[in-house]
């Protein structure tokens, strides 16, 4: 499995020029992984709240942080469309820092005011931030204290979404990991599939139908309702729907769950392999598996075929962002024939990514971490057909003539599963289509 070559690198002076470009690797050696350090143009883990607060509909997320945290949350992703968001910030001020006010008392008061205004809240997450980490505010203890006070109406949990500890999607990981201790124990002998990672509602429904057709009892984490916690135990088989769930997986394993290694369910190939991992473990008859999945795979493949014409041979460059880069790169390369110039990822979980790495081409330049200025230099030099990047970089690159796909759309669009494979490729096709269409 471990075909990939690791190249480590410490901070180096700038102006390294094309020495930055990873050298082509010999065939059969797998992708090249290089680590880079410098300015990281990425979101912090708080951003995960944007989708998590909508996924668990009766949960509320209270960031304990600075005005920067509050401003990030409201500016990052168009969340100001929500008239009644289910997140807020307890903003630390200089009274808290100077010790004039006891931060724990202040926090308790914020929570009281919040719960009085929002009696519909069933689960409250206290979310740690950079300042709360630096001043060493113990939110886990606060959560215990507040839970003791507000249970059974409201369960209070804590996790960190700080930028110094988490990158973007890792906020979902730390959030889900904080949930794990609260999951009820499963019947010791009950063998059940647990699909882990937030999915669009419509996708979750599709997977639920497929698992039902395969005869596999399946539950999903996160659940849509705070009190609808899936049980976990020795019989739990854990299938990761998202590639960024290292801590959650570890926590579930500590509760007895078994990880089913698989590629991620992106694209037809990935979805089939992912379902197959579960089917095999649950002893589903291969013919039955084929009967259930083949029509969907065929249908999705047909939809992709048309997109392939448009995307095949196009060169794609990934800035690091969501940890979805590798599975998506694998899909674009293998199912759409796209050429991978560089695949950045903020963090590479070698175990969870093993199946993906195995499917990626030899010599592929994977870069873990980031030095954004140097990566921009490489990107401009490579002039890819499409660049996947964050919101801060997209318009400047467009203005330089490079088509971009903003990575946050990959989190906000139903892309998993068969029937969304064409939608996923559509996200990459659309910027190219637009450039063709526009006559201005």
């Amino acid at each position, binding site marked *: 499995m471990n075909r990939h070559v690791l190249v480590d690198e410490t901070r180096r002076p700038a102006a390294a020029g094309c020495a930055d470009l990873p050298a082509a690797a010999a065939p059969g050696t797998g992708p090249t992984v290089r680590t880079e350090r410098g300015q990281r143009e990425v979101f912090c883990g708080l951003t995960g709240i944007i989708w998590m607060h909508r996924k668990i509909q009766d949960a509320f997320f209270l960031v304990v942080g600075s005005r920067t945290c509050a401003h990030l949350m409201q500016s990052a992703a168009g969340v100001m469309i929500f008239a009644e968001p289910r997140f807020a910030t307890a903003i630390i001020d200089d009274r808290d820092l100077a010790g004039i006010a006891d931060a724990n008392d202040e926090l308790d008061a914020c929570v009281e005011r919040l719960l009085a205004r929002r009696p519909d809240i069933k689960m409250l997450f206290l979310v740690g931030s950079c300042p709360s980490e630096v001043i060493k505010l113990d939110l886990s203890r606060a959560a215990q204290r507040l839970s003791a006070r507000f249970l059974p109406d409201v369960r209070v949990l804590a996790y960190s979404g700080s930028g110094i500890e988490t990158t973007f999607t890792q906020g979902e990981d730390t959030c889900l990991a904080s949930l794990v201790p609260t999951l009820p124990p499963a019947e010791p002998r009950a063998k059940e599939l647990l699909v882990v990672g937030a999915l669009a509602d419509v996708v979750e429904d599709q997977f639920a*139908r497929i698992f039902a057709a395969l005869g596999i009892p399946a539950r999903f984490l996160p659940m849509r309702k705070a009190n609808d916690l899936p049980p976990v135990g020795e019989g739990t088989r854990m299938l990761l729907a998202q590639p960024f769930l290292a801590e959650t997986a570890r926590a579930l394993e500590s509760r007895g769950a078994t990880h089913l290694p698989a590629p991620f369910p992106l694209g037809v190939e990935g979805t089939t392999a992912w379902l197959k991992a579960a089917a095999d473990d649950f002893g589903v008859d291969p013919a039955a598996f084929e009967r259930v999945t083949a029509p969907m795979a065929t249908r999705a493949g047909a939809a992709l075929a048309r997109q392939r014409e448009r995307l095949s041979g196009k060169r794609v460059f990934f800035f690091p962002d969501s940890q979805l880069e590798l599975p998506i790169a694998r899909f674009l390369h293998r199912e759409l024939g796209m050429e991978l110039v560089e695949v950045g990822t903020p963090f590479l979980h070698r175990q969870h990514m093993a199946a993906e790495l195995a499917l990626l081409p030899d010599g592929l330049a994977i870069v873990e971490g980031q030095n954004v200025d140097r990566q921009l230099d490489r990107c401009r030099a490579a002039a890819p057909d499409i660049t996947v990047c964050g919101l801060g970089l997209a318009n400047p690159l467009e203005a330089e003539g490079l088509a971009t796909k903003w990575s946050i759309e990959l989190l906000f669009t139903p892309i998993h599963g068969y029937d969304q494979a064409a939608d996923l490729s559509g996200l990459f096709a659309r910027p190219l289509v637009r450039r063709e269409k526009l006559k201005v």
Partner: protein
Amino acid sequence: MKLTVWTYEAPPHVGAMRVATAMEGVHYVLHAPQGDTYADLLFTMIERRDQRPPVTYTTFQARDLGADTAEIFKEAAREAYERFDPDLMLVGASCTAELIQDDPGGLARALNLPVPIVPLELPSYQRKENWGAAETFLQLVRALARPRAEPREEGAQPSCNILGPTALGFRHRDDLEEIRRLMARIGVRVNAVAPLTARAHDIARLGEADFNVVMYPEIAGPVARHLERACGQPFTKTVPIGVNATRAFVEEVGALAGLDVADVLAEGAGRLPWWSRSVDSNYLTGKRVFVFGDATHAIAAARVASEELGFEVVGLGTYSRELAREVRAAAEGLGLEALITDDHLEVEDAINALAPEMVLGTQMERHIAKRLGIACAVISAPVHVQDFPARYSPQMGFEGANVLFDTFVHPLVMGLEEHLLSMFREDFEFHDGAVPSHLASEHAAPRREAPPAPSAEPRLEPAAPEHGDVAVLERPVAEAGADLRWTPEAEKELLKIPFFVRGKARRNTERFARERGVAPITVETIYDAKAHFSR
């Protein structure tokens, strides 16, 4: 006889009023029954003019019909002349007076007034407003304009007339300003503008310009063709609405004026290009829009929508029968068949059938779109009083293109908002009735939408039973796929699709099912159709 709920155009004598009111020193004596004076309010209320239109109506009543209506006309004409002291008088009849055949032209001439009298024959039962305006303008020009006496001076600054703006015209005030700025920038002198602000003597000296700029072919087309024949003046064929059309217009003017316009073009094209290329506009790509209006604005909007915003134009039509050929050609260029009709109900049927994501139309289409819960922007007369804004709002020129960008995008749900709505369809804040977050008006209507046929009973569908603060009713529409049955599971799955693409999804699914004889429609049919139509 034709059943008409709303009419796109007024009768032709209102077109004549638009010309008379636009000009100065002109008075129009209209043989018309009591009640026809309502037309004054079009100008004083809808356009907010601060003067009465220069129109005298005879306002005869039933008792006058037995007596001498011709005498009433003559008296009205004589009094109008004495009171208003015009440079020129227009005389004519409205629809009812046309039936009593009093011959206003002959009667007025018999008064021997010392100013030109231009009689207007505007057949009310055949023609409409824009034709009436064009015909009035043409008769004025025929009566007054002559070729220039002396040849153009060597080295003189090139000059043009700007033809077409009238009273009550959709954005004519600001379009004219934009054209004036463009002409100044290119270096062309404006010899005269007509009808707006013109006096009779300005019409008389139209022949002195080198060429004509036709702003609105509906109104100025016949005059421009007449002047080409009578005075040898070429005229512009491009209407400068949109970035590309404006650039083409600048080039056309440059060619007609013999001037180099490279520097004008190099100065840029306003903000539309970057706003449209900015990544937050990516979601506009391929949005299905239906376009309807007068010919000029419909053709322009379709071009801008398609080339400059990246929409997909799925329908294009006009009520301007006089320019049907041009609209047909534009539609053909987009792979469409143009809808040429002045029947509002036909337009409604077309929109219903096409299920577009946005309508670019007139005030009438705004109604249709509102009823169907489709986004809509107004691009053409007839319009509301609110479409005569205080602020500078041209459609033409580069600033006009900026205005169009904002106008077309404003009613839509924004890109990231679309995504969130798709992802979290079940969120109670994202019920079908949710308004785009950037729009907050005094109140807002729940969106109604045709559900999959044929559940005959209206269903009260609580969008979020567990929170229960909204209920949306979907009522059946007989037309939509009455032959197709949906399973309850399929109906439910359809509702997981956000409303702004659901119409398309339903349409595609039913088309797919019909073509393949699939019945009933199941969840799998939805995804089969989705895969089939995926591009």
